C-alpha cells in the first residue's frame, strides 16, 4: 500500500509539483479575504524557514535548535535599515541575507568542528544570546518596545498590495526550492550528503567535512535571514518576543515532522503546522502541546519525518522508467 503510493508519487512527481504550484498561484485569486491571504503568507514564510533549516538538519544532519535567532537577525537587519535609512526592500532583503549568513559564519567557524549534539546546544544558546541582545541593545533595537512602522514592501510611496506580496514570497520560496534541489543534485550536494553519512569516510574521499559544514550553515542561515526580512516588512512591527526559543521549537517541529532531507516535507510540515492552529483557534492554549505530541509521535513512527528519507529517483530507477538521462531531467525540473 505505502509502496504503491510512493511509486505513484515517484511516477507523477513532476505533475504533482506542478499541481501544487498551481494551487499556490490560484489561491489568492480564489480566496480574496485578507485573512486567508495572511494565513497563506505566513505559511510561505514558515515554509522558507523550514526549508532553510532542512538544509542544515535534513541534508547536513546537524540539529539546529535556535533557528529563530537567524530569523530575528534578518528581521532586525531589514527593520533597522528600512526605518533609519529608508533603504529599499530589495536592498534590505539582500542585507538581511548577507548579515544572517555572516552571523552563521561567526557562530559556525569556531563550533562546527564539534560533534552534532554540541552544535544543537550552541545554536540554542545563540538564539537566546540574540534575544537578550535584542532586548538590551536599546539604542539599536529599541529593546522590548520593538520596532514599529516598518515600511511595507514597495517603491517609494507606492506599496505593493497584499496579493502582490503573497506572490513575492511565493516566488522567493519556489526559487529557494529550486536552489536547494539543484544544490543537492550537484557535486557540492553529494559532498554534503557524504559528510552527513560518515564524515571520516568523506574526508578520506577528499571532502573537507568542516568546510562543507560551515558552508551549509551559512547558506541555511542566509535563507532564514531572508525569511526574517520579509516577515519584518510584511508585518510592519517586530519585537524580541517573535524570536524566542518557542519560535525555534515551532520551526524545527515543522522541519522534522514534515520530513528531513525532503523539500516537499518542509512544505507539508510548515503548511500543516501553520494552518492547524488557525483551525484550532479556540484551542490556542494547547497549540504547543499539539506540536509536542506530534513531534513525539513522528519520532516513534517515522524518525526521519513523514516525507523524510524517500529517494524518489531511486524508486523511479527501480520501476525501470528511470534511464539515467530521464532521471536527471526530471530532477532538474522538480521544485
Amino acid at each position, binding site marked *: 500500500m505505502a509502496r504503491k503510493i510512493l511509486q505513484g508519487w515517484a511516477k507523477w512527481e513532476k505533475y504533482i509539483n506542478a499541481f501544487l504550484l498551481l494551487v499556490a498561484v490560484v489561491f489568492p485569486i480564489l480566496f480574496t479575504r485578507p485573512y486567508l491571504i495572511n494565513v497563506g503568507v505566513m505559511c510561505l514564510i514558515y515554509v522558507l524557514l523550514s526549508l532553510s533549516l532542512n538544509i542544515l538538519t535534513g541534508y547536513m*544532519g546537524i*540539529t539546529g*535548535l535556535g533557528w529563530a535567532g537567524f530569523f530575528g537577525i534578518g528581521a532586525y537587519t531589514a527593520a533597522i535599515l528600512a526605518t533609519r535609512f529608508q533603504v529599499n526592500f530589495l536592498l534590505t532583503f539582500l542585507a538581511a541575507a548577507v548579515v544572517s549568513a555572516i552571523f552563521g559564519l561567526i*557562530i559556525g567557524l*569556531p*563550533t562546527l568542528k*564539534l560533534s*552534532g*549534539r*554540541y552544535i*544543537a*546546544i*550552541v545554536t*540554542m*544558546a*545563540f538564539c*537566546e*544570546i540574540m534575544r*537578550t541582545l535584542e532586548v*538590551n541593545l536599546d539604542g539599536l533595537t529599541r529593546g522590548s518596545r520593538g520596532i514599529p512602522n516598518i515600511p511595507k514592501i514597495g517603491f517609494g510611496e507606492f506599496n505593493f498590495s497584499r496579493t502582490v506580496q503573497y506572490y513575492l514570497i511565493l516566488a522567493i520560496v519556489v526559487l529557494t526550492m529550486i536552489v536547494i534541489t539543484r544544490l543537492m543534485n550537484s557535486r557540492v550536494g553529494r559532498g554534503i550528503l557524504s559528510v552527513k553519512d560518515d564524515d*571520516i*569516510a568523506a574526508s578520506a574521499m577528499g571532502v573537507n567535512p568542516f568546510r562543507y559544514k560551515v558552508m551549509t550553515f551559512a547558506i541555511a542561515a542566509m535563507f532564514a535571514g531572508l525569511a526574517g526580512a520579509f516577515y519584518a516588512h510584511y508585518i510592519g512591527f517586530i519585537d524580541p518576543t517573535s524570536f524566542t*526559543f518557542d519560535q525555534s*521549537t515551532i520551526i*524545527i*517541529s515543522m522541519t*522534522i515532522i514534515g520530513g528531513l532531507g525532503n523539500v516537499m516535507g518542509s512544505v507539508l510540515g510548515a503548511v500543516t503546522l501553520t494552518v492547524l492552529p488557525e483551525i484550532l483557534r479556540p484551542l490556542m*492554549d*494547547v497549540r*504547543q*502541546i499539539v*506540536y*509536542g*505530541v*506530534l*513531534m*513525539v509521535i513522528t*519520532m*516513534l513512527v517515522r*524518525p526521519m519525518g513523514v516525507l523524510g528519507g524517500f529517494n524518489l529517483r531511486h524508486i523511479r530507477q527501480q520501476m525501470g522508467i528511470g534511464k539515467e538521462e530521464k532521471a536527471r531531467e526530471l530532477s532538474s525540473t522538480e521544485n
Partner: protein
Amino acid sequence: MFLQQVFNGLTIGMTYALVAVGFSMVYGVLELANFANGAFYILAPYILFLMFSSMSWGLLPAIILAIIVTGVVGALMDHFILATIRKNKAPVSSSMVATLGVSTVITNGLIAIFGSDTKPIPSNVGIDSIHISTAILTGTQVLIIIAAVIIMVVLSLIVYKTKLGSAMRSIAQNGTAARMMGVNVNSIITITFFIGSACAAIAGAMTSMYYGSVDTMLYFSVSVKTFASVILGGIGSVPGAMLGGMLIGMLETFITGYVTSAYRDTISFMIIIVLLIVRPTGLLGQKKITKV
C-alpha cells in the same frame, strides 16, 4: 556582602550541580542530551504547589510525592518513547527531538493547567537561619546545601561502588558488550532516567522553595544552565557535572552582584560557546577518540 554572595552562589550552584549530575548520568549511558530534564525540574514544584497549597498536605510528603512522580514520569518517557526509538535503530538525534517534544508537552501542559503566572511555594522549612558576621544563611539555604551534598555523595557511591553503577558505566562504554555480559540494558537505562529525573525534581523543588515561587520560564533558564554546567565540567562525567554546576552558580551570582544583572542568563550561554571553542572536553572530561 562578599560572604553573602558566596552563600547565595553556593546555594544556587548546588541546585545546578544536582540537575547537572542527573543529566550527566543519562548522557553517560545514552549519549543523549535530554531536553526533558528542564521540564522535570519545573514539574516537581508544580506538584508541590498542587499538593501543599491546594490539598494542604505537609511539606515533606508533598516533596517526596513530587520527586517520585517526576522520577516515574522520566522512567515512563524512557520506557514508552525512547526505548521504542532505540529499538527502531533511529539515530540519537531522533531521541533528542522526542525529549524536546516531551518537554514541550510538559511545560505547555503546566501552563494550560496552572496558567502562566507565578505560583507561590512555601519557603519556610523550619530550620533557623544562621548568622555569620553580617551574612545570613537562611534555613532553606542550609537545607539545600546539606541535601545536595548528601544526594551527590549517595549518587557517587551508586555510580562508582554498586553493581547498578558498574552496569551503568559498562553501558556507557559499550552497550552491546554490556548486554553480552548479562546486563539488562533497557532496565538499567530506565533506572538511570528515574534517578536523573528525580535529581532534577529535587533541585527544582528546593530552588522553588528558595525563591518562594515557581513559573514556567524557569524551564528555559535551567535547561541552559544544565548544559553549561555539564559542558564546563566535562560531558558524561559525574564529578565534572558537580564542579561545573557549582562554578556556574558562583559565577552567575558574582556577576549579577558586582557587574550587571541584565545579561544574567546570557552569561551561561557565553560560557558554553567560549568553552566549546577553547576546551570542548570540559574541565574534567576525557577526550574520546573517534573510531571508524
